[in-house]
């Protein structure tokens, strides 16, 4: 009847799919989603740029074809929403194919089984794509194809680009483009971001469908627009409601749509010190012993011994007061990176609790030097990798002098004092 081959979405699909995949492989760090299906599905948001544009442009082409016709649809007995569905489903499906392909590729790279909650992110994508299809359909019904098609392309692109880059964060989540900020291994997605996308897209879709249906050429030409003013007002109100509700749902969101996993989601080892990682961090293998060894190599020479080392970002403890040392851990880390991250934890804790002082630059410089030394030392002790490239004058000191300086520097920085430079007092 209306063969798929005649649908613009079908012949635009291969082009958009290829470009989306090239973009995905060029700009997405596949290792970053290892262990987290949520991060994988959220990272697919980068290709919304292509799936939404495909959906918007192809529905504008179809819609403008019908807009130019006369006497075919005007007196049709098929329900308006049935006709809209028939017109939009190939455009939505094509967009969903592009989007789900990138999600599947990233899910395969995560090497874990998807969770039920990932479906909500996918639903957000489907609705976002549908909203763009409804937008293209609206333009096609109101304007000639030579205007509606470029308008659909530019309108969708500007919306995606603007909401993705503006400094007003709640706007980010109307398009879904910035969901790829989720998630580090110790984070979960903030579902407010998904609900903002879902509610905005659903209301905007309905609004555009209403607005599209109010342009009846015959009635407009001969009988004024008064007949459809109710529908037009409904459509405009729905668009307004979509934006305001979306912004309200995203009002507390910031640049990254993620929340820290709670402590309960971490599994602790029987090592000394105890090391706590979550299931995402453990998905690449249990390397809690390696973390414990790295910390122990520093506590043996006098660094304060924590009772627990955790990669949780939910709290902000200190070793001295809480006996808890925070560390970073991603499942994609190599052993060398694991030791580096663990040994950096002391310096990172200092950087996270910078003292109120006029010597920020000096404090930072000393923290950096301390990190350089402690990571090199731990890698040498735990993995046998010789420490090279240490900055002068620290490098010119012998091993004992270096240790003395490092411990002294840590103590001074913890007391909000700027330590002496290596070689001066050590």
């Amino acid at each position: 009847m209306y063969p798929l081959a005649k649908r613009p979405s079908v012949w635009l699909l291969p082009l958009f799919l290829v470009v989306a995949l090239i973009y995905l492989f060029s700009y997405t760090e596949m290792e970053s989603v290892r262990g987290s299906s949520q991060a994988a599905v959220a990272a697919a948001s980068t290709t919304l740029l292509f799936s939404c544009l495909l959906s918007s442009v192809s529905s504008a082409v179809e819609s403008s074809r019908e807009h130019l016709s006369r006497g075919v649809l005007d007196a049709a007995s098929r329900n308006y929403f049935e006709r809209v569905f028939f017109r939009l489903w190939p455009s939505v499906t094509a967009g969903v194919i592009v989007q789900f392909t990138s999600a599947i590729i990233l899910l395969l790279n995560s090497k874990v089984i998807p969770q039920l909650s990932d479906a909500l992110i996918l639903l957000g994508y489907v609705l976002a794509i549908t909203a763009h299809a409804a937008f293209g359909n609206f333009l096609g019904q109101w304007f000639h194809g030579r205007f509606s098609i470029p308008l659909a392309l530019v309108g969708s692109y500007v919306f995606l680009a603007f909401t993705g880059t503006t400094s007003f964060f709640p706007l980010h989540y109307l398009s879904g483009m910035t969901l790829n900020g989720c998630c580090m291994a110790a984070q979960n997605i903030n579902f407010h971001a998904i609900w903002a996308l879902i509610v905005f897209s659903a209301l905007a879709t309905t609004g555009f469908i209403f607005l599209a249906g109010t342009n009846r050429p015959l009635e407009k030409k001969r009988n004024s627009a008064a007949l459809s003013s109710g529908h037009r007002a409904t459509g405009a109100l729905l668009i307004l409601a979509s934006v305001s509700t979306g912004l309200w749902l995203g009002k507390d969101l910031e640049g990254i749509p993620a929340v820290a996993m709670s402590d309960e989601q971490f599994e602790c080892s029987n090592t000394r010190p105890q090391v706590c990682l979550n299931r995402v961090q453990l998905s690449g293998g249990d390397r809690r012993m390696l973390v414990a060894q790295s910390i122990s190599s520093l506590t043996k020479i006098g660094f304060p011994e924590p009772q627990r080392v955790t990669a949780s970002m939910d709290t902000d403890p200190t070793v001295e007061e809480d006996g808890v040392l925070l560390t970073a851990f991603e499942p994609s880390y190599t052993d060398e990176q694991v030791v580096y991250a663990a040994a950096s934890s002391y310096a990172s804790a200092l950087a996270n609790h910078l003292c109120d002082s006029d010597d920020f630059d000096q404090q930072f410089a000393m923290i950096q030097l301390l990190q350089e030394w402690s990571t090199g030392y731990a890698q040498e002790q735990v993995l046998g990798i010789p420490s090279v490239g240490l900055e002068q004058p620290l490098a010119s000191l012998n091993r004992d002098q270096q240790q003395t300086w490092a411990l002294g520097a840590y103590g001074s920085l913890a007391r909000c004092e700027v330590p002496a430079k290596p070689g001066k007092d050590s």
Partner: protein
Amino acid sequence: MSTLSMENLSFSYPRGAVLLENLNVVFGPGRTALLGPNGAGKSTLIALLATVLRHKSGLIALNDSDGSVTATNLRKYRQQISWLPQDFVPVGGLTVEEHVAYSAWLNGASRREAKRRAPAAISQVGLTEMAQSKATALSGGQQRRLGLAGALAHDAKVILLDEPTAGLDPNQRDRFQTILQGIDPGKIVLVSTHQTEDIDGTFDRICVLDKGQQKFHGSVVEFMAMGEPETDPRDKIRSAYGRLVDREN
């Protein structure tokens, strides 16, 4: 027997003159020519019957038992009518066969049924050889036949054609008249025209509208009886029409 009736039907455009006023007409099965000068309200009446325009007052009913057309039974009503406007333009990108099937689907046929009915409707309007051609590539006359094929494929009880032969060359007009003559006589076919030469032999009945008022509604024979005697049928129709319609037109 199906009837399409109007009772006290009135219509005017906002801030415009009254186009139809208290019109009472009943159309029965067969081909009826809706005659009238330009601006008589023919196209408006056709558009009102097709429900692409909404009447301000009065009733439109297909079969008295179904009651007047309202928002609640609009879908059912539309399933039974087909409308071909004067400025028919097909949907781009489709072949003739696809277009006819799509038209049938839009008017309630299932996909399978629409596909099944399309070839017969195309054959009835003489476009079989063009079945795989692009609908938008057809000539003006062929496009109107395409529109009629859509109406036939839909199997509507009522076919409303607004000036279907306007602007067509004599060959195309003759062809269209022949197709009209082949339509099932059980259907209500209402054709607006201001070309009196098309009437004889094609239509069963004539309804004359002028300034929104019905001036005549009866058989072609009755209509010709009002014309000049001793002239050929075309002249009789022309003279009868001239007597009914204000000369100022």
